[in-house]
């Protein structure tokens, strides 16, 4: 007889963090999931994750694996990278950061190669945003900037856009179709734009807010003059949605800042919030935790005995110029970018995370752990930084946090590496 969990289950398949799933389990497997989208079903698999501990493909004891991992990671610890990937809890993030601090390593994650532009822009300017409930209940105009959430955030529309708003009488959906990146089909209005003109279009929009009676812009951007006028005079709460982690990496590096600046400026005449679509796996959780522990949301280098913010190069760039002699990957490798995976083949690597032994990265030490939200509880953050408590459904012999703590203890036994 399958048993269902008594609490609703949270999915980390994307940043929506849907917490209304109900899951049945039997004989150590997930036998049924209700309310999950296909992406979510894929994320849970059947709950059956490997539990191997290996060195170079050969099964070894936990102790042996920790010893070998310590040899790899502590040989020249200031040249070690701790790469925090997906599907581990904030408790594991905390242990990973403690280890980086203790040994003087660099700690970073996918953020560095995906949303860094947006985070840095928000550090320069701030931002105007909201939790997703404000989108669902307050926005009377929703602008999709070159994204249809349904592809990579399948239930986003159903959960946050389609419901009847409580604090607005009606809702206008506007698509800005950027090249092939079109907004949702349900949008009643569309503007077509080339990615070459994205930032210009946002400048036109901003100018349109500032000056009354601007001379109409001719050509491709004329539609944005009109849009600015309407937003200024008719809208009460404008939600702008963009994909902070687009699949194809298509991105003018100035786009996030232009979106932030426009949304902030809109607040002079109406209310507005920018919503960044974010991937799942608790990436927001890692950025938050690293911020409270170090002050920086990613790219913290402890080599000098304290965190230093190293944002000049991304992880991929640092790896490719040989900055690191060893890498500890914490978390699932399923979504590790191809270029980073390629670099990892050239550096001694330790992988600690769900499905580690299935990774097709470099040979080295792998320690399978449970995944947060499947085998482990703990705090996880939605794409808007709203926290949830993950529900453990099945058991797994190893948690990432425990492995990292063992590594820390091994390090302590060798004496502090910090000078």
């Amino acid at each position: 007889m399958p048993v269902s969990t008594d609490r609703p289950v949270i999915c980390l398949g994307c940043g929506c963090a849907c917490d209304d799933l109900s899951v049945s389990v039997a004989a150590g497997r997930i036998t049924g999931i209700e309310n999950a989208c296909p992406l979510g079903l894929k994320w849970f698999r059947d709950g059956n994750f490997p539990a191997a501990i290996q060195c170079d493909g050969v099964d070894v004891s936990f102790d042996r694996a920790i010893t070998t991992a310590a040899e790899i990671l502590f040989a020249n610890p200031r040249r070690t990278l701790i790469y925090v990937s997906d599907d581990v809890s904030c408790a594991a993030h905390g242990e990973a950061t403690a280890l980086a601090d203790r040994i003087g390593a660099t700690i970073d994650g996918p953020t560095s190669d995906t949303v860094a532009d947006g985070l840095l822009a928000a550090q320069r300017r701030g931002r105007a945003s909201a939790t997703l409930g404000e989108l669902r209940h307050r926005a009377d105009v929703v602008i999709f900037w070159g994204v249809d959430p349904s592809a990579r955030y399948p239930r986003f529309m159903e959960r946050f856009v389609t419901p009847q708003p409580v604090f607005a009488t009606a809702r206008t959906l506007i698509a800005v179709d950027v090249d092939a990146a079109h907004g949702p089909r349900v949008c009643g209005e569309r503007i077509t734009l080339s990615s070459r003109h994205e930032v210009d279009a946002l400048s036109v929009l901003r100018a349109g807010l500032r000056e009354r009676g601007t001379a109409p812009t001719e050509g491709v951007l004329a539609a944005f003059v009109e849009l600015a006028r309407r937003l200024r005079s008719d809208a009460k709460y404008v939600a702008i949605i963009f994909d902070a982690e687009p699949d194809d990496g298509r991105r003018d590096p100035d786009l996030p800042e232009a979106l932030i600046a426009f949304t902030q400026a809109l607040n002079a005449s109406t209310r507005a919030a920018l919503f960044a679509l974010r991937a799942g796996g608790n990436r927001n959780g890692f950025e938050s935790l690293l911020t409270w522990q170090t002050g920086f949301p990613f790219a913290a280098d402890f080599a000098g005995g304290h965190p230093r913010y190293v944002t000049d190069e991304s992880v991929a760039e640092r790896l490719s110029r040989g900055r690191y002699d060893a890498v500890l990957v914490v978390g699932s490798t399923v979504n590790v970018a191809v270029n980073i995976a390629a670099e990892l083949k050239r550096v001694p690597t330790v992988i600690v995370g769900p499905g580690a032994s299935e990774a097709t990265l470099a040979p080295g030490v792998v320690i399978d752990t449970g995944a947060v939200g499947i085998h482990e509880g703990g705090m996880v953050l939605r794409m808007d930084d709203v926290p949830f408590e993950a529900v453990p459904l099945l058991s797994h012999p190893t948690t990432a946090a425990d492995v990292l703590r063992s590594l820390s203890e091994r390090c302590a036994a060798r004496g502090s590496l910090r000078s």
Partner: protein
Amino acid sequence: MSSERLRLCGGIVHDPANGIDGEVRDICVEDGVIVADVPRDAPRLDVSGMIVMPGGVDIHCHVASAGVNHARRLMPDERRHDPAPAPQFTDGTGRSGTGGIVPSTFTTGYRYATLGYTTAFDAAVAPLTAKVCHASLDDTPIVDAGFFALMGNDEFLLRQIEAGETGLARDYMAWLLGAVGAYAVKIVNPGGIDAWKAGHRNLNTLDESMRGDRVTPRAILDVLTTVANELGLPHPVHIHCNNLGVPGNVATTLDSMRVVAGRRAHFTHLQFHSYGGERGKSWTSAAAEISDYVNAHPEITADVGQVMFGPALTLSADSPLEYLLHETTGGKWVNLDIELETGCGIVPYNYEEKAAAAALQWVVGLELFLLSNDPWRVVLSTDHPNGGSFLAYPQLIELLMSRDARRECFERLNPRFLAGSALADGLAREYTLNEIAIVTRAGPARILGLKRKGHLGVGADADVTVYQRSDRIAEMFSMPRYVLKSGVLVVEEGQLRRAPPGRRLHIRPGYDEAVVSNIRKHFEDFSTMRFESYPVRNLKDRPLNL
């Protein structure tokens, strides 16, 4: 460690809660609490000639909320210049971090402890994000800490007020405090944040409303204060009034105090709410009027929210105010609307001696301190990091204790708004050491209803700070010689030696279970989170006994 006994010998003890004002006595500690005596062979620490006080209690700061974390993230540059290497502990567990106006969490705990503070409350947490606050506090060592839950713009409560359902409001407030592990009810700009989110810029008087006549700031203050008092909460209600920072806001502040008359209520960062004059025309100190009212009304307590010159960071649920500030500075600005509950705004700021407004604010804060006739009810804060960092408390203490220090600073100020202010006319008062012990520990503890904090009587938590006596007041208060936290010697010879985890201070008042079905329905209708996902689970410390 905590089971160890210790006798602090020969210190000059300031323990105002127990009527001890500078007497030479021993303080005995066992199992983390103060005891009457320990055996003669118990370890001794000779503190003869030194000043002994209870550990400091910060009644209002911002150190661990999700909003604080957004603020931290906003200031990467300043932290480059304030690295915080890991303290050297024998067990190797010290953590590095970064400082600046909003330090990282471990560094925050260490810096509070090395300042002699052992208890702190984050004054503004959106309940929706409480889990982040608890996780941040888990990483803020040494200090016992808790937070206040934002309720003054809460959708469920506004609806109950509109419907006249005070009973449901009461049970909801009790449920909410327990569900998210909070310590007290916080009201920020009642109704004004809701108005800002709804597209109105703000509310300017206590009788305006954006939701029908019944949901006014006056009604919100009244209902929440009544309920918090009825529930018998240790710290009934913590109020940040409407119209913060606006010239002429003294009228709103006095009006708010009259609304809650006769019931216990705490008015926070009163300095920001004590201005005369008129918007766009004039700006004056109204500290005297406010002080007259507070002095005459024993049910009212306050912290000052002193501004200290230098860099600060304004961070508040009062998002309409933060927007106004952003218009003034034209610089970085964060706004986060938080569904069904509140908002969050962040603007970096710099208080300059040569800026007329900042000079006035500095003066108003000091006047509130100096005109108060009851240090138990008007206590010290800088609203860290809003008026300045908690690291500036020693400088503030010096300003309170030394007329010369005040005069020296006053002479450098932009005098534009200062004519006729009490401070300009020369306030001679100088705080005594005992009064400092009251406004930094005994008073806040009493206002917070913390029976085991802020004093050194038998049964109190053994949180003790020992200062080397000195005429250089700021230096003395910035470098305690010894600090005990729950009986553990965390600071020795001025050096941080240990960093045990702090305890979580939270409460779980009782309520009528019948309210739960209403709350559940509210979540189903309006929240993007399931009701079951909302509560904070597995808090490591038990709620305080009420």
